[in-house]
């Protein structure tokens, strides 16, 4: 399953990374190198094997009581905002 230039452009778009045209070709060859190496996983017999989704065996996610444990600290929340005003994040216009 080799990747072509259009796939790289499409996936970079999905990942929201502006890929300069000059990086497309090198990225194609780097990704194909990595994917070719990964192909060896096809040799493994995985028939009937449950996918492993967690490194913690048989762990059920713990549930906590549904109550507010923190909050009411807008100054802390906004402390690292690139742009903030009157207790809000300021972001580029979303709706025309």
């Amino acid at each position: 399953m080799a990747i072509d230039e259009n796939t790289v452009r499409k996936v970079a778009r999905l990942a929201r990374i502006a890929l300069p045209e000059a990086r497309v070709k090198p990225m194609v060859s780097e990704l194909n190198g990595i994917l070719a190496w990964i192909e060896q996983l096809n040799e493994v017999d995985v028939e009937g094997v449950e996918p492993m989704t967690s490194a913690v065996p048989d762990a059920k996610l713990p549930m906590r009581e549904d109550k507010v444990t923190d909050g009411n600290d807008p100054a802390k929340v906004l402390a690292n905002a690139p742009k903030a005003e009157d207790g809000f994040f300021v972001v580029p216009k979303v709706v025309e």
Partner: protein
Amino acid sequence: MTELTSLTLAAALDGLAKKEFSSAEITDAFLKAIAAANPKLNAYVVVTEKKARAMAKASDARRAKPKAKLGALEGAPLGIKDLFCTEGVRTTACSNILGEFTPTYESTVTANLWNAGAVMLGKLNMDEFAMGSSNETSRFGPVVNPWRRGNADDRLTPGGSSGGSASATAADLCLAATATDTGGSIRQPAAFTGTVGMKPTYGRCSRWGIVAFASSLDQAGPIAKTVEDAAIMLQSMSGHDPKDSTSLPAKVPDFRKACARGVKGLTIGVPREYRADGMAPEIEALWEKGVEWLKAAGAKVKPISLPHTKYALPCYYIVAPAEASSNLARYDGMRYGARVTGKDLLDSYEKTRASGFGEEVQRRIVIGAYVLSAGYYDAYYLRAQKVRRRIADDFRAAFADVDAVLTPATPSAAFALGEKGGDPVEMYLNDIFTVTANLAGLPGISVPAATDARGLPLGLQVIGRALDEETVFAVGAALEQAAAFKARPQAWWS
């Protein structure tokens, strides 16, 4: 009193307890050593001098009180990998995308250390978002290994991603350091710098407040000068945390005590699949020496088989980038970090992420997005998760017969900065012996055991059962004792 910096953590704690010196004195010695060495080694990206002095003073004041209630790390100056959020101290994961991000909260692991009385010297350099094996992907430039090849002055990598933690510990710029390990990022740099690196069981340390890379693999641990020091560090770093739902509600045993257990009656497995084709003869010889040492110390050694070993790295390079592409989606330049404003919202996202992420991080995000995308999910991601189960099952079967597994830590000694640049896969192969423990969630330690022909350190790795760090420490300490590794880098940096 510069010799204070060369103490082990255990000896320093002892000296502090006996009031042979104060925390202010040893902290001052480290700050002076850092000021002299950092321009050459680039291990620290932030030195928190004021905070360090204040914390040391507070520790001395606690100790001066009658009936003082003291912590297990009281007054000990430590370095912190830049992946741990530290309140009021810039934390960037050594990525441009985090700009001047200054957390308003403290990670659980570092909070545990401060509660135990430790002193923070500063933040340590690392590969960007912990993605790398040579520290060359850091926004602040690479860390330099204090070790050199004989008399040659080539700058060598300290390994990665915890290269700053390893270099600082090896060069006596902290008593010990925090680090993290997703595929080998504690153990490989420890092996490259003649230090001890311990990755505990997944879930032993809370991940809360640690910048996420691959959440099902990331685990914090220490880099230290000795096995006992690593045990002391891990003791304070560990513990259940309700803020991390994958943190294990398990009792933390006495790790330091376990170091003295010895290996009599233990059975150690030697996995034949780790004998990789083209293994350097020095590595193979060291591995055999390790077997002899453990036999001489009273352990039984037997060959075992971990048949899916060769699939671990390719499996990792699907699972880790997939999780990374999902975790790193949060960096959109809107709520924190550096924003690049484009012509509209989408353009802002794309420009922000293109300028904020380095090449290796971008590559992994794109791979991750690809293996998770419609039409490829089953062929790549789902298959990798099944192979991961096979790898974990290999270990489970092996641990029915053996108490721990002995392997080399790395396929080579430290290489030169810039030596491995062209082919990403070549760099990835650094983690060939370490990555299995991450996939299976098992504890693993790297212990310095010998030097190669050019005088560079080499490490042995011990992998144990889940939540059995005690045996890992016991075997690690036995190797350390038998190896009697006393080599030190020449202090060309001070």
